[in-house]
């Protein structure tokens, strides 16, 4: 495939370049404001478009997940720190928020619900400072292992400290009993949605702003080459720790929002599973671009909610999707999209559409075959007690006979072969579009 970024030709440098340095284009003031205005408009308008109660709940979850995944990417994408324990700050933020809400209600203190995410922020920040000081001394595998150890420590500690964490049942609260501003009770989900949306937007703007500060750029430098950072006079550990604390702070806000949304917090908030979900969301969306975790949070929440309605083994599909992304699109969904940026700007991207459609059809066929195989195997092996008759894609079938298996195998295999046959066409179209983009 044709690379869009051309390598500098060798021998050019000694040729005595005289061209002056220009600060690389950063999009200008307008370029920074417009995407945020669009984001705010989407958040504002979404409940008018998706009006059902279910979609309102789902969008609330998406908002929480966006904050959580963006905070995670401050570590993984920006600073190169792979954490297996980010749920610690999310969960502790949620627990402290619930207790704070109950204390405010009991004491009739004049604190509105909308301010409660600050409790999560302070909690996340405080634990980030303490646990970050321990874990950010080293990067790489050491950091990852320490994060895993701390997560396990906190998770198991939460099972023991029953009075604070409430065990499996958790701690409940009532968000409607707090000081009312503008007559908002926060009883209806729509009010909670807008509360989450506002906090989500504030956090996202702040996290984006941080990427454009000395800290943000030094985080990138530490990710790329921590040793070189030392030799330009900065301590990589200071940079890592600062990023870690801020990341924990925003994770705490996400935890607060979850506590407000569900009005119940239990130990599963602190679990390794929760830490895994945020990793998956950030990675599936793409850790190389700021908007990646936002896409990932939306996709993962959508899948969690809708797939779990369709199939019992949705987590299996979730895992398979993650593996596919890691193997074939390590830049995530955002990475795939960004790849087309130069082509779209040059106006040659539309030339790819026919070949993409051509590849999509057999890919869907292959996918259908694979899903059939997985579902039939699940029925035959795990759910044998329910009998061998089942319905798949609205087609009744019996997994006891060989016919459904043969058909599913043929569909999956045939789909794969046809899909593979389309790859050269896609590559050809890509090269043509990229070459045309360069000439344009």
């Amino acid at each position, binding site marked *: 495939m044709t690379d869009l970024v051309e*390598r*500098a030709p060798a021998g050019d*440098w000694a040729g005595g370049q005289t061209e002056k340095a220009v600060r690389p284009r950063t999009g200008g003031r307008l370029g920074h404001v417009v995407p945020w205005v669009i984001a705010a408009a989407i958040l504002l308008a979404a409940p008018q478009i998706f009006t059902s109660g279910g979609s309102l709940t789902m969008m609330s979850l998406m908002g929480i997940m966006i904050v959580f995944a963006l905070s995670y990417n401050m570590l993984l994408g920006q600073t190169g720190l792979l954490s297996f324990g980010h749920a610690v700050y999310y969960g502790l933020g949620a627990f402290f928020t619930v207790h704070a809400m109950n204390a405010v209600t009991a004491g009739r203190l004049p604190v509105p619900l909308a301010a409660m995410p600050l409790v999560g922020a302070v909690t996340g920040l405080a634990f980030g400072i303490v646990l970050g000081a321990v874990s950010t001394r080293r990067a790489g595998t050491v950091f990852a292992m320490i994060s895993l150890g701390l997560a396990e420590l906190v998770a198991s500690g939460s099972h023991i400290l029953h009075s604070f964490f409430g065990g499996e049942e958790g701690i409940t609260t009532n968000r409607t009993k707090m000081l009312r501003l503008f007559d908002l009770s926060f009883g209806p989900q729509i009010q909670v949605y807008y509360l989450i949306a506002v906090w989500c937007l504030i956090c996202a703007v702040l996290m984006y702003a941080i990427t454009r500060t000395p*800290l943000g750029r030094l985080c990138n430098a530490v990710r*790329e080459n921590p040793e070189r950072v030392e030799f330009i006079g900065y301590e990589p550990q200071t940079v890592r720790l600062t990023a870690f604390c801020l990341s924990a702070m925003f994770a705490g806000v996400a935890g607060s929002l979850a506590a407000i949304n569900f009005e119940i917090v239990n130990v599963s908030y602190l679990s390794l599973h929760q830490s895994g979900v945020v990793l998956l969301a950030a990675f599936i969306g793409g850790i190389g671009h700021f908007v990646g975790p936002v896409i990932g949070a939306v996709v993962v929440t959508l899948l969690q909610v809708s797939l779990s309605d369709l199939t019992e083994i949705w987590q299996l599909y979730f895992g398979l999707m993650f593996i596919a992304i890691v193997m074939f699109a390590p830049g995530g969904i955002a990475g795939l999209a960004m790849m087309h940026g130069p082509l779209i700007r040059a106006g040659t991207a539309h030339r790819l559409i026919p070949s993409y459609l051509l590849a999509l059809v057999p890919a869907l066929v292959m996918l259908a075959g694979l899903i059939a195989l997985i579902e039939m195997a699940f029925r035959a092996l795990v759910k044998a007690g329910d009998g061998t008759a089942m319905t798949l894609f609205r087609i009744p079938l019996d997994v006891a006979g060989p016919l459904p298996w043969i058909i599913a195998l043929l569909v999956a295999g045939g789909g794969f072969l046809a899909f593979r046959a389309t790859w050269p066409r896609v590559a050809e179209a890509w090269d043509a579009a990229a070459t045309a983009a360069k000439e344009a």
Partner: protein
Amino acid sequence: MAAPAVELSGVTKSFGATQIIAGVDLAVPAGERHAIIGPNGAGKSTLFNLISGRLSPTSGTIRLEGADITGQRPAAINRRGLARSFQVTNIFPKLSVWENVRCAVLRAMGYRPIFWRGIEHLPGVAARTAEILDSIRLGHRAAMPAGMLAYAEQRALEIGISIASDARVILLDEPMAGMSHSESEHATALIREVTAGRTLLMVEHDMAVVFGLADRISVLVYGRIIATDTPERIRENRAVQEAYLGVAAA
């Protein structure tokens, strides 16, 4: 008289039982361009690693402008005014050339890793970054990821990052390694230009560069400095000829 820019006394470094640096005394006065030459394995890079804080000496003291910096961390030594480049190109490959230099410029202008001020609005940083890029002739590459630069350009960027931190003492570890003849001529002129008014300590194998650039030369053989003198006198020194130049000429 002012303290030397860099002063080593009785510096040794051992890795296990192997002594790499066997007692080095060296004083480089401020403003001097000083080259360290010697056969492969003489310990030149180790000496640079000791001075810049990448390694701690086993014994002896290292002073920077009179202050003891023995065993200090690289970042602390850098903040005291010493910057270095690396023999193996050591840059930020995925960041743009502009970012590479800007990170070093930030430090030089005294900015800590703060998160409450936009980097684009810090006064003077952009101008200084552009100035450095122009001086290393990479102005036209500002937006390119550093890893995509041609080899000689990466070497130039390596020097650029080192000088961007505005250090008074610059250590360059084989800046011409792997460059073509015309590129290294070009780089010599560049180094002369960008280190004007600073103290330069340089390890280099290219003798044309060394004799053209250095005010004084030290010859390091098996972890010891066997001679320190002007280029003319070093060329005539019999011990040096036997230990090093003779080998190179053969």
